[in-house]
């Protein structure tokens, strides 16, 4: 490739590929038949798109403009490698708007010197790309007025084409109640095979991603930064877990840093990737409201958790409901019904059989469970083991670990406490009032429930987690 340029000895053809003559439309007809040489050129052209997209300052407008002006991206790079890109570039009004800043031009020229290195760096960072030239460009993003020409992603690309997806968004300053609502909605949706889409921010986004994964589901994170720093440091472990079963995608190259404008742009991806948008908690001025308005613009159904009437953190949600823009959220099951999705799952606690997973460890097949069973026999921690070893555990089959209902598997005190915690965040003092147990007894019960992954603590509060999120009324 070197010496004769990246596009063969004759240089790039001056013909645009896929009929993308319109400066602001890079749309192709996916799946159009190509002859083998055309396939080869198409592969080279998509690589050229990716290389251009890795340049800081090249967004979809610049890329579209460059390709429209020069015919193909390969020709853009070919010209740039020879320092001839600057000439005859933009129309007069665009030149005046400074479409191609000097720094961007320099960046393109640098990239054009060694496009292979750019591609290798992406591969080394385990970042895959999908471009508008590809047949498998996500259909959901095609609906956007200006779809991102190149999408960077990590994890499983199939998550982009999930048949059912719901976005859950909300404030970063989430209250425990808000986190609980987000977790419960995400777990309920995930248990029904719905992919949960969110933005990887702390607060509501993080709670939604984590609960979807805990419920054994898939989750998709759209980020407003590069993949080198996909989200807040506190979410590093969460990102690792998302990549195991979902994907993290964004339209910025890996090294890009987040800035003011990048998050609203990410929000349009979140909306496009989902069949419905659920706003869990949003104060009067919140980025989540931008997402809500994008959903309205794009005709995506909008659902809203009303929140407590006095909570300032739900002021934005109430405004959405007041102006009639969103529907009140009535639980994952109702949401699925309203979207016309057949319910394949049955809520835990009502009957057996359902896509319900206890990620924190199945007590019927986990070796640790044996400990509980021996305790149970001796010290009256009766019924700690659930339905007995191997009852319905399908770990080997890759399916849900077991389908036992949660509450009947627990000891009496645990069941009592679990039932109360399932209603929402609660302090130990309130639990003491409700159960009449001593603080020591209650603390022991809460530890057991935490070990089972059914309860987690956050500050002074205990919240339902794992399967307990699915037992909601």
């Amino acid at each position: 490739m070197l010496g004769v340029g990246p596009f063969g000895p004759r240089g790039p053809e001056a013909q645009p590929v896929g009929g993308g003559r319109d400066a602001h439309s890079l749309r192709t007809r996916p799946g159009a038949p190509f002859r083998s040489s055309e396939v080869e050129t198409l592969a080279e052209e998509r690589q050229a798109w990716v290389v251009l997209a890795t340049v800081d300052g090249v967004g979809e407008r610049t890329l579209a403009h460059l390709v429209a002006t020069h015919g193909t991206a390969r020709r853009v790079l070919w010209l740039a490698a020879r320092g001839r890109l600057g000439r005859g570039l933009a129309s007069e009004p665009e030149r005046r708007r400074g479409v191609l800043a000097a720094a961007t031009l320099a960046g393109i020229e640098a990239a054009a010197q060694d496009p292979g290195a750019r591609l290798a760096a992406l591969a080394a960072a385990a970042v895959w790309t999908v471009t508008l030239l590809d047949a498998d460009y996500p259909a959901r993003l095609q609906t956007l007025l200006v779809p991102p020409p190149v999408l960077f992603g990590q994890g499983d690309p199939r998550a982009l084409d999930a048949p059912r997806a719901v976005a859950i968004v909300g404030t970063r300053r989430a209250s425990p109640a808000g986190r609980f609502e987000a977790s419960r909605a995400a777990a309920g949706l995930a248990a029904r095979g719905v992919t949960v889409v969110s933005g990887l921010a702390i607060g509501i986004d993080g709670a939604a991603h984590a609960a979807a994964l805990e419920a054994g589901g898939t989750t998709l994170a759209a980020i407003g930064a590069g993949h080198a720093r996909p989200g807040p440091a506190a979410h590093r472990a969460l990102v690792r877990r998302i990549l195991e079963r979902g994907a993290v995608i964004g339209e910025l190259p890996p090294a890009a840093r987040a800035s003011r404008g990048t998050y609203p742009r990410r929000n349009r991806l979140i909306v496009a990737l989902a069949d419905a948008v659920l706003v869990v908690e949003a104060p009067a001025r919140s980025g989540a409201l931008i997402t809500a308005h994008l959903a309205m613009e794009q005709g995506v159904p909008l659902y809203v958790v009303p929140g407590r009437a006095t909570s300032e953190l739900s002021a934005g949600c109430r405004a959405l409901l007041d102006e009639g823009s969103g529907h009140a959220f009535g639980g994952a099951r109702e949401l699925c019904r309203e979207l016309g999705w057949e319910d394949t799952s049955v809520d835990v606690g009502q009957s057996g059989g359902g896509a319900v997973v206890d990620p924190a460890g199945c007590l019927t097949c986990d070796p640790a469970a044996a400990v509980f069973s021996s305790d149970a026999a001796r010290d009256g921690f009766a019924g700690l083991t659930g339905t007995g070893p191997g009852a319905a555990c399908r770990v080997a089959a890759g399916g849900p670990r077991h389908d036992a209902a949660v509450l009947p598997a627990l000891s009496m005190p645990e069941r009592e406490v679990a039932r109360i915690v399932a209603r929402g965040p609660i302090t130990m003092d309130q639990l003491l009032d409700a159960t009449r147990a001593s603080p020591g007894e209650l603390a022991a019960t809460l530890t057991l429930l935490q070990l089972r992954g059914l309860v987690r603590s956050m500050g002074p509060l205990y919240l339902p987690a794992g399967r307990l999120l699915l037992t909601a009324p």
Partner: protein
Amino acid sequence: MLATLITAVVDGLEGALVRVEVDVAPGLPVCQIVGLPDAALSEARERVRGAIRNSGFLYPQQRITVNLAPAGRRKHGAAYDVAIAVGILVASGQVAASGGDWALLGELSLSGAVHPVAGVLPMVHTLARAGARRVGVPAANAAEAALVDGLEIEPLLGLDDAARLVAGPRGRRAAKATRAAFVAVSGTFDERAAGAALVGSDPPVDLADVRGQAAARWGLEVALAGGHSLLLVGPPGAGKTLLARTIPGLLPPLDEREALEVTVIASVAGLLGPGDGLRRARPFRAPHHTASYPALVGGGPRLAPGEVSLAHTGVLFLDELAEFDRDVLEALRQPLEEGSVVIARAQGSLRFPAQVQLVAAMNPCRCGYHGDPERACTCPPGEPERYVRRISGPLLDRLDLRVEMPRVRPADLLLGPDPEPSAAAAVRIASARERAQSRNGGRLNARLAGREAVELCRLAPSARELLAVVAARRSLSARGVHRILRVARTIADLADREAVLEADLLAAADLRDPAAALRPELAA
């Protein structure tokens, strides 16, 4: 003529002997004090002259040289005043020393009255060991001096008392000595009452006054029963400070040995009031978060004990922990670990005891409402994590228990049964401490080494496995496992049980690891 007297000086918590030599010789009427005196000591000249004149003696119009030996040791304070004055009287022939093994301590006022000084207890102790039989101490310090066995304490009200003590029954001149009537130009005052602080001397709170917070009350009870250090986290108004102020009423009184140590430290710090004898109450010290390094740890020009030593055998309460200076908190690590403070100086190092139980309180974030069920936190995202990180990880590691306190619901303040009073909890705490100390060789559970904690818990095999599960699920370090064992031991002691059961381990595991707050991934 030359007079030599014995007195003492405080060095750390120990006394040391100092010889006062006074030479009165013909020459210009000047008085010079040599032997590394500080400013207060150099000014003794003026106090001594006034005191001598106002006690009916003559101040010799001759050259007076006062040497404090050993000359190499720095000396400070006014405790030598009486000895210097008596030395001048003896050297100028106004008082005939009758001999005998006596020593003198005390500060003089111009009127000749003797004022109390700090550190009398260790100084008298040193004098007794050196063979003194009679020691004249300021009358206000007589009670603490009397704690030292085997010698006669002479309370001194004025220089005349000291002169009589030195002259013995046959000292005729001394018998004529008088004490100047205190000319009260502005009336008389009760100096002792004036010493009572207006601020910072909040009376202890009874648990009956703390409404709600049942979980935190339990956490505090476990902490005090085992000597476990405790971190209270909660928004403003949760009652963290109020709960901490119940601690003095919950701690058992000091035993004899502890009482003497505490009294010595209080004496050196000058905290013993007039007439105060042995301290019986366990110390509870609550320094403000602006406290400086020497104030907290000890040292400074006078090498005084810091708050951490003043709280020896008791509780050091640090309110608003995150607001303390980071370096000052760092300096607490070593005392918390070793139970003593070592202050190194060029002339040598000093050791103050500092076996304290640390109780700290802090807000969860800068605005205080992070994680509050009702109120929105106004901190920018990420700020709560930064706030906790102000406290260093190693210090958080020294904290055994973390209790989260929610804001009290208004209903709890008005409704519900009356909370249990302190007296009931104090009985349980005292009996649990007794049980632990008789088993642990006098130590509380918090002071058990890791291996001892394992042995003394005598866990059943199933309980061991349970602990292994807890450790695996929470990724606990060995320190974390031992922490749970010690706390579980205390929970069993509170239940008056020798066996540590699974339920105790589980309950101990719920009293969370303060260091866990530092791991943002867990908090998120």
